[in-house]
């Protein structure tokens, strides 16, 4: 409190005048003893030793301002001195100061310590264990969510009239149509990079023409669908998590439940189904753009004309290469959609957790996409496609 109503801001750090009176040490405090001045004021008090005094009298007559923090500080100084067998009397004449001391005296006698941290090794083990259990639990929950979504999807396929068409088409627009420019551009660039890198190597053997083969096989079988999946995971998977997560925070999910609408039917099915439908289309488009990028690069760097490129392309790949790529698209779409919606549903009641879950959703879906892609590569090589 700036008691005398001066403009806020003028501080005169507290000072102490000490006087010995036989066995008694008289301390006359003056200046400001409020929070702002406390650091200096406490230093001033610390400079005065008890000098063997058994009892101390503190006089607050000259104190300009005091607040509970200042009072608390004085009370603690008294406590410390009295613990050493001395005696302290704080003379408070001002009724306002007295109420401040009463307020400060409400502070608890024992301080609650923060929960003790176990030692580093045990902490590490505990964290490892917790994460392992958490990881397994996430896997289990994801699997059960996948089951729920599969049942709902089958239900939708069997009873198409129950599909929410408007939501489905809106989702297809957001996840498919709006992704066309970025998917096209990135695939085109990947086609250029692939053509340039392989032409550099093949030129050593004078086999530049096989650049076309590498671009075609690379794009059709792997890169087209992978690039699309990564972009979609970043664009739409994260959006699913953020949308559903925010709805969860707002209790909209609970509201749906109480209205007798299944959140999986209303929110998850249109998203996952929409993604499964548009992802092959996006992938096909990405393939064309990627090969186009390869063709442009071949024309510029290798002098392979467009007609020559097409002829070589026909010899290099057949329809099976295209289908090997395209067949992965709905699978990846399912992974991204399910993971995105699952993480959204895992959001707890805070805005912070929406952010965390969104990050996890993108990381997990890209991770799973690549793992599944690797497994499919092995599978395809075993069955010889």
């Amino acid at each position, binding site marked *: *409190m*700036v*008691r*005398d*109503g*001066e*403009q*806020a*801001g003028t501080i005169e750090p507290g000072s102490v005048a000490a006087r010995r009176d036989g066995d008694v040490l008289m301390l006359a405090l003056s200046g400001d003893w*409020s*929070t*702002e001045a*406390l*650091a200096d004021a*406490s230093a001033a008090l610390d400079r005065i030793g008890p000098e063997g005094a058994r009892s101390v009298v503190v006089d607050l007559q000259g104190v300009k301002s005091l*607040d*509970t*923090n*200042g009072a*608390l*500080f004085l009370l*603690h100084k008294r406590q410390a001195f009295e613990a050493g067998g001395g005696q302290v009397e704080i003379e408070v004449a001002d009724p*306002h100061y007295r*109420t*401040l001391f*009463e*307020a*400060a005296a*409400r*502070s*608890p006698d*024992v*301080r*609650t310590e*923060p*929960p003790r941290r176990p030692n580093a090794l045990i902490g590490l083990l505990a964290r490892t264990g917790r994460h392992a259990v958490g990881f397994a639990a996430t896997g289990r929950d994801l699997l059960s969510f996948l089951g729920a979504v599969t049942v709902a999807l089958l239900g939708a396929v069997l009873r198409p009239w129950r599909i929410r068409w408007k939501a489905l088409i809106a989702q297809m627009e957001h996840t498919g149509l709006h992704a066309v420019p970025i998917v096209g551009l990135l695939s085109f660039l990947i086609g250029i990079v692939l053509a340039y890198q392989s032409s550099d190597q093949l030129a050593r053997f004078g086999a530049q023409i096989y650049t076309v083969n590498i671009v075609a096989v690379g794009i059709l079988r792997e890169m087209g669908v992978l690039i699309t999946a990564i972009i979609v995971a970043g664009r739409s998977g994260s959006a699913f998590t953020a949308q559903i997560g925010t709805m969860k925070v707002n209790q909209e999910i609970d509201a749906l439940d109480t209205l007798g609408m299944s959140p999986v039917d209303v929110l998850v099915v249109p998203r996952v189904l929409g993604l499964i439908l548009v992802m092959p289309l996006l992938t096909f488009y990405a393939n064309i753009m990627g090969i186009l990028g390869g063709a442009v690069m071949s024309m510029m760097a290798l002098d392979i004309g467009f007609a020559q490129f097409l002829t070589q392309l026909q010899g290099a790949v057949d329809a099976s290469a295209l289908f090997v790529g395209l067949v992965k698209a709905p699978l990846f779409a399912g992974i991204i959609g399910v993971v995105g919606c699952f993480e959204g549903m895992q959001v*707890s*009641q*805070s*805005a*912070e957790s929406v952010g965390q879950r969104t990050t996890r959703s993108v990381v997990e879906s890209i991770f799973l996409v690549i793992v599944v892609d690797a497994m499919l590569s092995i599978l395809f090589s075993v069955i010889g496609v």
Partner: protein
Amino acid sequence: MSGMDRPDGRGDYAIRVRGLRTQFGSAVIHDGLDLDVRRGEVLGVVGGSGTGKSVLLKEIIGLIDPAAGEVEVLGLDVRTLQGEAARRLRRHWGVLFQDGALFSSLTVAENIEVPLKEHTRIGADLRADIVALKIALAGLPPDAAHKYPAELSGGMKKRAGLARALALDPDLLFLDEPTAGLDPIGASKFDALIGDLQRSLGLTVVMVTHDLDSLYAICDRIAVLIDKRTRVGTLAELERDDHPWIKEYFRGPRGRAAAMAAQADSRIPTFAEEAN
């Protein structure tokens, strides 16, 4: 209260607002609004939705700059004050936002420490004591100190926000709908807490509220935002006011119920009773 009985009459007002004009686009919220808040009083700010109660609060603490007018807090002009002086003025007020506005990544104790670390050079030991005191003053159990905001109930979040607002022992306390979202028992306990703290710390309190019970329980005067200006008075004065909105507000069924409740229980429980 301190300041009220000052001999020379200077600084009797903690806040002076003159000719305030607030405009968002073409919508005028306040026009020629005046407001005085005396030192050591509890002023309630009421008004219908959209009359700019929270905006007024934000203009006083400098979060929003009004289109025109003067805003003086503790004798300093909030609108022109800059740099170190503005920083220093901020130490003299505490603000409790509607849901506490606690930093969610910090524990309650760490939240309360933020202003202490930022504005003072108080050592860690005394700081911990101050934190414990503020937690006790705000009526939180000691073990709340090491909890995160997400682990607290709505009422406890508000108390923790209050503890943070009190960390630097401000002269002025601003409360934005302190009892909104609390159950009636929690709300009246919170009212009692504010009243108790106001008396024992000599605070000047400005509270935006919708809660008629709070007005009757702890407010010395009330500012009603109406027709882009304020009408200020004690409850008794406003109850006699003939403005239709004020009439409906104070003499409607809820107003009457609150008045009756206040009459039946005119004594605010003390801290000790409240803690039990």
